[in-house]
Every structure is written in C-alpha cells, then in structure tokens.
C-alpha cells in the first residue's frame, strides 16, 4: 500500500476511534436523569447512575455492536456471501429459543437465561454443521447456509411454541422484550458474563483477520495457497458464533448490525479484512451506543434496541447498497 493510501486509512481509523470515544462519553451523560460532568464529583445519585447503570450499559452496547459487526464481517467472508449475518448458522434463533426455554421452564434468574441461550446458540450451530454433512446438494458453503436456514426455522418454530405456552401476564412480556432485543436492565454482572466469551471471539477474529481473506477465494485456490480450509473456517465460525451467542445472551436478538456495519466498513476501507474487521468493530460499537441512546431517550418508555436497529438499519442498508464500491454485483 502506498503512503498516501496508508495515511488515508490511518486518518479514517483515528476519526472512527475519536467518534467512538466521544459517543461513549456523551452516552454516559445522556438519559432521562440529565447530568453534566461536574455532577460526577458532587451528585451522589448522578455518580451512582453513571457508574452503576450507564457505564455498564454503554460498555455492553459497545461490546454488543463489536461482536455482531466483527462476526458479520467475518462470516460474510467465510461464506463468500455479503448478505450473511451472524444469525446465518441459526445462532440467533437458537439463543432466542434457549432464553425462552429458560424463562418458561428453568428460572427468570438472568444468569440461567444467559447460560441457556449460549448453550442453545452453540447447539444450533453444531446441529447446522452436522446437518450440512447430510445435505447432498451444492458445495460445502452452500450446504452450511442451507442447514443454517433449516435450523433457524426449527428454533424459530420452537420460540413460537414457547410464546403460545408462556403465561401472558408474567412470562410473555419478558419473553417478547428479550426477543425484540434490548439493553434495559443490563448491569455490570451481565456485562461481565458476556465479556470473556465475546472479547475472546472478537480478539481471535482480529488476530486472523488477514487469513479470513483467503476464505473469500475459490476453495481450490485457497487450498493451493496452503490454507487448511476446515481448520480456518472452523476457527472463524466458532469464534463468531461464541461472540454472537455471548452478547445475544445478554441483549436478546439484535438484527441488522451484523449485516449493515461490515458493508459500511467496506465503503470506507475497501475489501481487505485487515481493515474491514477492525473498522467493523469501531463502527459497530459506535452505532450500537447511538442506537441504544435513541432507544432509551426518545420516548417515555424504552423502545427495544432490536426495533431501533431495524428501523435505522434497513433504510441505511439500502442507502449503502445504492452507492458505488464494495462487493461484486454477483
């Protein structure tokens, strides 16, 4: 890369990092209880709100955005398909089923819901992976996508059954809010539950980000370049799924981020995953903090984050696709 291009990308990364920092700080002082910086020193309630509610929530929003966007960018490369998102292997619906199962049959205790959603998220991926071997149609990648669709549909049906069985007064509201996705009520404990797995997944993907490019090539070319496809694909899919399941267990099903943010990153940084994956992390964190800010401030009652990401994400995605650059036409 020549120096001008390097400088251009370095400037863009610096701007993204600065915007993330700014949005993060603004988020701490934004909400129904209005605060300014001095309140942190003088106002005990303000201090409590920032340290015990908003900081954990903003950090969780950043982690959520990073995990979904980095996983989305990686999976789009791993499946050679720019329309893939982290739900492709059934992980979102599997996690949703797990949470619904816990709410109905285990306990409403948050750690139980989180563990159950991680377990079922991973189970969905394992099922999709196993099922793909039984499909006798298309190449490996297509078989995985098809199996993912089937598993998603099965778990989605399972969630529907849970909704029918749920107590309409006690369980259904909680279930519905979880399925729509959101960060209301997120506290430090939730953040710390999700952090190790989500961060582990994100870091693993950041480390192998250049190798992820090899998965976008034809399989025979990638093999000829010394790539152990099963190992690399297995590693990046596992890391993506673990990161996604970890944040989904805390925030519920949040759509669009994993699909839209990588496209945005490619518009700004080209196709190379050396830049796309870290840029997706920064953009995903920034946008999720902004969307969560909107979710908790624009109406008297909180709007589920998943609703906000859909409302903003869908039109933004169309806008991105209508502009030149990025992926191939087909």
């Amino acid at each position, binding site marked *: *890369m*020549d120096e001008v*291009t390097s400088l251009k990308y370095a400037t863009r990364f610096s701007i993204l990092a600065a915007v993330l920092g700014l949005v993060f700080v603004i988020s701490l002082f934004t909400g129904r209880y209005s605060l300014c910086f001095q309140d942190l020193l003088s106002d005990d309630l303000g201090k409590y709100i920032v340290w015990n509610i908003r900081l954990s929530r903003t950090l969780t929003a950043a982690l959520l955005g990073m995990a979904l966007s980095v996983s989305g960018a990686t999976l789009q*490369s791993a499946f*050679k*398909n*720019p329309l893939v998102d982290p739900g492709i292997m059934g992980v979102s619906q599997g996690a949703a089923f797990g949470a619904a199962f816990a709410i109905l049959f285990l306990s409403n205790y948050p750690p139980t819901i989180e563990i159950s959603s991680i377990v079922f998220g991973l189970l969905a991926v394992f099922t999709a992976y196993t099922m793909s071997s039984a499909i006798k149609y298309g190449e490996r990648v297509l078989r995985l996508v098809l199996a993912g669709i089937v598993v998603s549909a099965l778990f989605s049906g399972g969630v529907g059954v849970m909704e029918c069985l749920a107590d309409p007064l006690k369980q259904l509201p909680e279930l519905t809010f979880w399925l729509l996705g959101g960060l209301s009520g997120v506290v430090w404990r939730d953040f710390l539950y999700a952090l190790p797995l989500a961060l582990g997944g994100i870091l693993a993907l950041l*480390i*192998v980000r*250049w*190798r992820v*490019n*090899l998965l*976008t*090539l*034809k399989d*025979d*070319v990638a*093999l*000829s*370049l*010394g*790539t*152990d496809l099963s190992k690399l694909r297995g590693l990046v899919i596992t890391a993506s799924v673990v990161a996604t399941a970890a944040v989904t267990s805390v925030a519920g099903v949040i759509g669009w981020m994993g699909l839209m943010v990588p496209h945005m990153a*490619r518009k700004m940084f*080209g*196709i*190379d995953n*050396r830049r796309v994956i870290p840029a997706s992390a920064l953009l995903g964190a920034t946008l999720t903090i902004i969307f969560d800010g909107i979710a908790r401030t624009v109406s008297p009652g909180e709007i589920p984050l998943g609703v906000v990401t859909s409302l903003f994400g869908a039109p933004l995605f169309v806008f991105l696709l209508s502009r030149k650059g*990025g*992926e*191939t036409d087909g």
Partner: protein
Amino acid sequence: MVKICVEKVRYRYPHRECDVLKGVSLELPEGKATALLGPNGSGKTTLLKVLLKILAPQEGTVYVDGEDVNEFSRDDLSKLIAWVPQEEALSFSYTVIEYLLLGRAPHLGFFSLPTKKDETKIIEILSELGMLHLSHREILSLSGGEKRLVPIARTLAQEPGVLLLDEPTAHLDLGNKAKVLGVIKGMANSGKTVCFSTHDPNEASLIADNVVVINGGDIVSCGAPIEVITKDFLKTIYGTGVTVIKVHGKPMVELASDNFSKTNRYT
C-alpha cells in the same frame, strides 16, 4: 527446479459411473513448459487437480521431487506448486495489490500479517509484468486480459517451483492471449516447471517444450510439439479435418476448409 511424476493414477468423481482418469502415468520435465492438450471432458482439469492434491485419486501416486505428494502438508505443497484455475469468480473485489498479497500466504505464519517486505515483493512483480499502474485498481474493474494476468502474477508472489494453469487463455483476444502466453513461457524460461491445459494446439506448439495429449481419461500421445501435433492424429482426437503447416519450424493448425463447404446444412 521441481520434478513431478504421475504413476498409474485412476480417478472417479463420487456418484459417477466411469473413471475420468484411467491409469494415467506422466512426467513433467523440470524447468520446461508442458501443454496438456485434449478435447472437452477429456480429464485435463481433473489431472491438474490431482497433481495439486485437491482431488485424491482412488489408485496411483503423484510424486513431487520423488516423494509421494500425500507426504507433503498442504502448507509445504503450497510453497512448491501454484495453481491458476480456469475462472476465479471473486465474491469481493480486492485491489490488485491486496489480491497478490494473498499469494504470500504460504510464506507467512498463521497469525502473521503481510509486511512491507511482502508489499515490496508484490510491487517488483507488478513492475516486471508491466502492471504497476493497476496495483490499486479493483480486480473487477480490469479488462479480461488484465484479469487473467492477475492470478498468474499471484503465483509469482507465491514463489513456487511448479506452476499449474487450467486453460489460462480461455476467452481472451489475440493480444491478451499473446501477453498471457508470453508470461507463461517466461516462467518456464526462468526455471519453473509449468503445466497448462489448453484446447488450442497452436498455443501448445508456440510455447510448450512438451505436449501431452489426453483423451477419454488416457494419455494418448506425448512428446515434442512437432512429433505430436500432426494432421492425422488431431483428426483422430477431435474428429474434424485440420491442416497442419509449419511456421518457423513449429506446427500450426487450422481447421480444414472442407468442414465448411457450401453443401453443409444445419441438419
């Protein structure tokens, strides 16, 4: 220089009723260009993929420098053999330099990123090929000929001893064909063992030191172009009349005009 030998290789695709390769034995001479010539469906691409260990034959062995190819790890093999497929539909449009850097993968650790040194190497390759002006262009915005040269340039970044190419000049105009063939010949001249498949006997005659004719999964002839590319032999293989003339001592083939007589009808 790297030598490749194939011994009695039999290959059948899963769920197929007959073998695509029927006990093929072959030797690719070191530092020479070998053309795999044959009609559609004769087994050329399958043979190349067997050489590359992408397909595992049911019988027979491929030897690389005297050692069974199965003894090589995928990583080690990629340092020795490079591959250019017939078509490489990219899902994402990398710039030329980003794509060529992927050719450095065999020489980098699993967790490493390409360094300035790797980028310098790519710049040198692009300069040698007269493609430096394309380095920051997206591959999908290139012309057909340029697109064909990019994967060949990627193999140079790989620094292999053997280069396998599947119909490298398919769908190219004359100018681009000449350019691609020139690069391939240059690679053989620089000591690399080159093997390319083609439907065109003239391409084989122009740049190959050795021509291997494959038909119906068997090798039916092998030798210098002047020995292999003959009128009667080509008629047997392709089932159509041809004229073979010598240009600068090399056999050149054209379709015989009686294939297109006025009495011909669509029926």
